[in-house]
């Protein structure tokens, strides 16, 4: 690790997404009340848009009004309530403004009418999948001159972000098999899938490229802490919330073992209704049963479909709200992209 010039006592507080926060802050500082300067903050579920919005609120308590949505917006009052607010309006979780059903864009249209006519500055946060959908269907990006995407984190940033939550030291343990103990050529059993549901196990020679231990090669041993976070970042695909969840599930405070970091297999096969409902849950990030029923009923039997998705570990329920299981979210995204359910 690099030496910290400030010293351990004067360690600077780590701020995640500092660059994105600074961009929004600059826009707020330069806002004069003239021209259109609305901002859209877009991110995947769990990516941490709430952190950015929270930071902006904290920095600008006197100039910013905050309007969050937790459920599907059903009345125009939620939108017209912005008339009595401050000059800058933070609107969180705007994906709740649109429903994927016939007549489901009325609130979004009212919202777009409102921001088109308003002199205020609107800083809005959106789920990236709803954003892509509304971009294709309604051309929503034309209303927001500034679009800021929540970036994927690299291993080092995720490590700093996660460890900033802990005061004490954490022990990192590599309890996996040491590659140096393996022979150069090994035999692995490869399963060959044959037609008509049969399979054949055949031995296959395997060149073990990592058979020589780093010590024997004259290289430094890898930093276990880095190895742990590399693995978490790879599984989470740089998503902060997913990475944090994997970390928390793997951590047995004050130690974390490399072998305890779960790497679930990615094999999803759904029918069209299951895939569509999963897409709705993914696009809304966290949605109540009532809202789900309003979107997809009576086309889809919500109870049965949710049960099937939950029992497969793809969706989880918390306090009456359904969301995609963070550990499977990247698998879900790649599946839904593959079948063109998300664009």
């Amino acid at each position, binding site marked *: 690790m690099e030496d910290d010039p400030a010293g351990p006592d004067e360690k600077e507080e780590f701020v995640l997404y500092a660059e994105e926060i600074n961009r929004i802050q600059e826009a707020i500082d330069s806002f004069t009340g003239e021209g259109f300067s609305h901002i859209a903050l877009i991110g995947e579920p769990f990516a941490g848009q709430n952190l950015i919005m929270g930071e902006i609120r904290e920095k600008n308590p006197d100039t910013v009004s905050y309007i969050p949505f937790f459920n599907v917006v059903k009345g125009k009052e939620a939108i017209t309530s912005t008339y009595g607010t401050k000059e800058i309006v933070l609107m969180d979780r705007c994906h709740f403004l649109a429903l994927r*059903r*016939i007549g489901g864009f009325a609130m979004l249209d009212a919202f777009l009418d409102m921001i088109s006519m308003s002199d205020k500055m609107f800083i809005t946060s959106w789920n990236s999948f709803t954003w892509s959908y509304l971009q294709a*269907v309604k051309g929503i990006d034309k209303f927001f001159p500034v679009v800021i995407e929540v970036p994927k984190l690299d291993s080092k940033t995720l490590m700093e972000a996660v460890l900033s939550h802990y005061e004490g030291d954490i022990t990192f343990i590599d309890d996996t098999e040491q590659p140096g103990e393996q022979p150069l050529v090994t035999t692995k059993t490869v399963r060959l899938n044959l037609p008509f549901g049969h399979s054949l196990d055949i031995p296959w020679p395997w060149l073990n490229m990592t058979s020589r231990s780093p010590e024997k090669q004259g290289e430094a041993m890898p930093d276990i802490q880095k190895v742990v976070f590399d693995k978490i970042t790879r599984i989470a695909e740089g998503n902060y919330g997913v990475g944090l969840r994997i970390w928390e599930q793997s951590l047995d405070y004050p130690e974390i073992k490399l072998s305890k970091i779960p790497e679930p297999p990615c094999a999803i096969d759904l029918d*069209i209704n299951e895939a569509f409902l999963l897409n709705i849950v993914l696009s809304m990030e966290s949605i109540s049963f009532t809202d789900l029923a309003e979107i997809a009923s009576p*086309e889809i039997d919500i109870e049965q479909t949710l049960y099937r998705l939950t029992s497969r570990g793809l969706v989880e329920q918390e306090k009456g709200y359904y969301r995609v299981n963070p550990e499977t979210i990247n698998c879900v995204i790649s599946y839904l*992209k593959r079948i*063109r*359910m998300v664009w």
Partner: protein
Amino acid sequence: MVLTTLNETEGIVAELPFREFDPGMILQIVYIIVLAYILVMVLSFVFRKIGDMAGSHRITATMLIPLLKIVIYASAIYFIVATVLQPSLSQLIAFSGLFGAALGFGLKDIFADIIGGIVIAFERPYQIGDKISVLGTYGEVKDIGLRSTRVITPDDSSVSIPNFSVFNEATASANAGKTEMMVVIDLFVDAESDAGAAMDILRDAVVTSKYVYISPSRPYTILLEDFPFYKRIRAKAYVNDLRSEFEFRSEVTRRAWIALQREGIQPPRFPAHIPEASHNK
């Protein structure tokens, strides 16, 4: 002159080193044919599986299948000829010419189909997985063989279309090698209805469908056309997988009609001035 040439060819053929047929040779020929057949089956299966796993790139993966078939069957023919004749290069060329002429006179239709198969494999007017319309048949291409193309129609009939038809028939491919495909959905409403509201409902039904695919290069359109006794609302949009073409059309139509009737928009009625008797004609 012609006679002389034919005599010369006959002489060359007579000199060809035909091996004596024995059970071993016959077994070897059978073995080559079976091996080529199995190889074609296995590779077709593997490429189809890869295609299924590739999702939206399904058709790209399967387009290699016809090419592989040609290569494997051509190799099998070569090995069979080599097993029977063991010819020199000049003898092989002379024999090929004679064999080709015989094929041209006796089996010209089959030969034309095989050439058609080769043209389809290289030029790709359509590919396995495409939805095509040819010789009055519409359906999904399931296989492109050496002689014919097998198409599965919407009512699950398997139709074999001779490959030669690629030369003299117009072939329409609805998706041209892509997984998505444009679907046209028509709704007919009463002439007195609010056409604007009907268009909004159809637009919503299309863009909220679970089968729709929209992108800058795959936009959707809603069109209105006025006819004497009714209005036609037409939606043009892409289905995310051409296999769901009919489900897409059905789902949008059903959901749109529920919403239209909720708004009091009715289907066309018979014009009042037409006598009742003429309705029944």
